[in-house]
């Protein structure tokens, strides 16, 4: 049955013809390669939980009187967006879980993109020929941040509503076109009645579609250009060492999808996130204490706080204060980030192809720049909590703010050189082998000590195996006869003659244990 169905599809799409190579695609085995997978799978979770939420959410700023099950809000004037979010939280089965999983997955999505990007950056994975994929990745980060902000804004609660107000002010601050941008996006002056419906369609359709296309391109390029890899285990510039796509990688990566979903479900079950019923509906003249955005907007919020009270005013025109931290800083950040592969190639004069990754210590120049810049954003992130810190430490707000204004300059200047020094120190140390093995320490009768490396399996006399080149191998059985793959390789006598028949056939032995 399945056989004939496959045959039917295959006759029309020719899957068998071109896809066998794909089964053999090699995926390097290193934990840091899972970071991008976390991002991918959080996106899957976001889509699935998001579809659930769209079935119940009403994207409207129409004011209604809430009369649902949540008693403290009953009788209050709220927007339909807020009321429907409360309803899907308390009245729809599984609604709260889906909402919390969606929110957690969004935070994990952006987080894993950032960490994945750091991994690529510090190991030089963006170097030629992978500049395009780096640029696509940076754009995915930007879109993820934007879409996170939009989704966070949709419930129209008091905290996110304040965020929308700040977004309007930042748009308004753009020189030349700011007023137009703001009134066009909001359909008039703040607050208007269009912003929630517009954010909704951008959040659920436009940006996810672009993100999905870019993810496709990101992965397509990954297959076309093949993976980078760390040194060791037989890895060279001319091969990729690891596990084949089918079945090893598929099993692991599908399992990993479920693991990411499982962790998100645990978070959704036990760690409350964005309890909008506690914040209350958005009322323009009200505001709450400790107004913090989601974590990935923290650096922008911190920058808004730390910015000195400057504003450029000249006859007839003005560049408002919010422009510098709100537009210029992210603009420079993402432009430099996108251009980094080209900048580095230019500065370092290295335009060669690289498929082997660098250990961060071996490129102190890049590592220290990256660490210094990261620390700058970490301080900005910390600065988004000035009020909470002042409250918690019982220091005056002034002290906290002034301290952060100094820190944001000093910390990167310290982190950079220190990182450089640490890299140089680490270079002199013994390089750790890729996989750690147990050692047996033996004390001889004379009192001397010696160690023996333990084989990975008992009785295994070859702990370090050489990689088998799957695309070049011709499998032979015990009698030295080539193992054929169906009709293709039938009749191939002596080990393939270079025209491809018989080579690259990956079989698992029958006596497999």
């Amino acid at each position, binding site marked *: 049955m399945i056989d004939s169905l496959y045959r039917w599809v295959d006759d029309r799409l020719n899957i068998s013809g071109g896809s066998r190579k794909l089964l053999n695609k090699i995926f390097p085995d290193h934990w840091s390669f899972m970071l991008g997978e976390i991002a991918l799978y959080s996106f899957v979770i976001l889509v699935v939980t998001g579809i659930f939420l769209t079935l119940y959410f009403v994207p409207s700023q129409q004011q209604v009187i809430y009369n649902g099950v949540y008693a403290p809000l009953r009788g209050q004037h709220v927007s339909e967006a807020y009321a429907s979010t409360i309803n899907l939280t308390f009245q729809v089965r599984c609604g709260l879980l889906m909402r919390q999983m969606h929110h957690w997955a969004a935070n994990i999505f952006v987080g894993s993109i950032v960490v994945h990007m750091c991994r690529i950056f510090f190991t030089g994975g963006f170097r030629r020929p992978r500049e395009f994929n780096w640029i696509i990745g940076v754009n995915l980060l930007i879109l993820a941040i934007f879409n996170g902000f939009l989704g966070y804004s949709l419930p129209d609660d008091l905290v996110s509503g304040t965020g929308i107000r700040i977004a309007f002010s930042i748009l308004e601050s753009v020189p030349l076109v700011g007023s137009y941008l703001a009134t066009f996006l909001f359909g008039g002056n703040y607050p208007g009645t269009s912003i929630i419906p517009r954010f909704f369609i951008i959040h659920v359709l436009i940006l996810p579609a672009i993100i999905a296309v870019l993810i496709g391109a990101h992965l397509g390029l990954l297959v076309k250009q093949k993976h980078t890899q760390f040194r060791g285990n037989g890895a060279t510039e001319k091969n990729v060492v690891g596990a084949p796509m089918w079945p090893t990688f598929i099993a692991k990566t599908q399992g990993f999808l*479920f693991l990411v979903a499982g962790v998100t479900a645990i978070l*959704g079950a036990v760690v409350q996130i964005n309890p909008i019923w506690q914040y209350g509906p958005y009322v323009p003249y009200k505001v709450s204490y400790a107004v913090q955005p989601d974590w990935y907007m923290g650096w922008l919020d911190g920058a808004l706080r730390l910015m000195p009270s*400057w504003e450029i005013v000249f006859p007839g025109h003005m560049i408002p204060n919010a422009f510098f931290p709100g537009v210029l800083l992210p603009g420079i950040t993402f432009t430099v980030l996108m251009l980094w592969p080209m900048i580095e190639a230019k500065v370092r004069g290295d335009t060669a192809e690289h498929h082997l990754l660098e250990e961060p210590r071996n490129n102190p120049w890049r590592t220290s720049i990256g660490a210094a810049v990261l620390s700058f954003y970490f301080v900005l992130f910390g600065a988004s909590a000035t009020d909470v810190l002042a409250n918690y430490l019982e220091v005056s707000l002034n002290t906290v703010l002034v301290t952060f204004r100094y820190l944001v300059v000093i910390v990167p200047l310290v982190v950079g050189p220190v990182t450089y020094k640490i890299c140089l120190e680490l270079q002199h140390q013994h390089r750790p082998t890729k996989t750690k093995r147990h050692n047996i320490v033996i004390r001889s009768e004379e009192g001397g000590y010696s160690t023996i490396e333990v084989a990975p399996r008992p009785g295994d006399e070859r702990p370090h195996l050489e990689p088998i080149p799957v695309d*070049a191998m011709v499998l032979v059985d015990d009698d030295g006869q080539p193992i054929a793959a169906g009709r293709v390789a039938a009749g191939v006598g002596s080990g393939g003659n270079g025209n491809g028949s018989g080579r690259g056939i990956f079989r698992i032995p029958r006596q497999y244990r």
Partner: protein
Amino acid sequence: MPDSPDDSRPSEAPGSSDPGAPASPSSAHDGHAEPPVVTVSINAPQFEVAAANPEQVERGIAVMFVLAAVGFAGFGAAYWQNASNFWLGISLALGMVGLGVGMVAWGKYLMPRGPFSESRHATGPTEEEREAFLTDFSSRGKVAIERRGFLLKLLSLAGGVFGIVALFPLLRSLGPLPKHMFYTTAWRKGDYLVTPDGRRVHVDDLEEGGVLTVFPPNDIGGALSQTILIRPLLTDVVTAPLRKTWGPAGYLAFSKVCTHAGCPVALYEHAIGILLCPCHQSAFEVGPDKPAVPVFGPAPRPLPQLALYVDRKGYLRAQHGYYEPVGPGFWERGDRGIAQ
């Protein structure tokens, strides 16, 4: 094993493992040929499972899959019974984690231990490929397209007109032009000061140090006309030389829209005479000779002050609308309307 794989493996030049050594350009372009055939026995150790104790691992994975089934069944039951968020999430998580751990362990321990490798071909085309493509592209283009340069120009014209026309309604109909939108609020001469619940504010309403949010009667709850009314003293307050009459009976009214990023400046600290914005902690000094000038934080400009008077019945009213745009700055604002 007739042929051990590592004997015929393309050997790696020891020099290429120097840290940071770039691949030589020549090596990047000789990779188009297929790698030489390597004969591998199907009994090579690389094809064995990774686990030393497969039976035990298999049992563990089986337990995981059973747990997953139990978890998902529990999730179904929890959904059916409308159980709490905790049970829904935990049962779902049990199912997912069970599946995940089981599958990852299967892939990691019960599949060929490897390592395997595949060869990497040069990324770019050969010079011949590039040249052939470009020749085809440009020679066909020359004959079929460039000869009809006139048509090409007309095509660009039509496309360009479409582009501009498509852009215009698309952007233009999204919202009105800003025009004077940012310069005015709903406040008009003689407006009563009204609380959010629609009550007019009387001169006796606030005690010393009191604070209220007020609106003009035709825009109650308005995001842009929101005004913070404070009473730092019980006698007339003059915040600036030209504002002699603006603070009758100690009442001062300022725009509640922060000049930094537009948040409501909602906190009034009477003891130190400070209005504070909770979003980014801009502080504005208020009181005699203190017209809400920013003293701390990122806010660049004072909060605009609304001139008040007390009418004959004792109600607080606005002498005039705001004399300058409220809220954060914008490009067209320039130095117009900077506080008098």
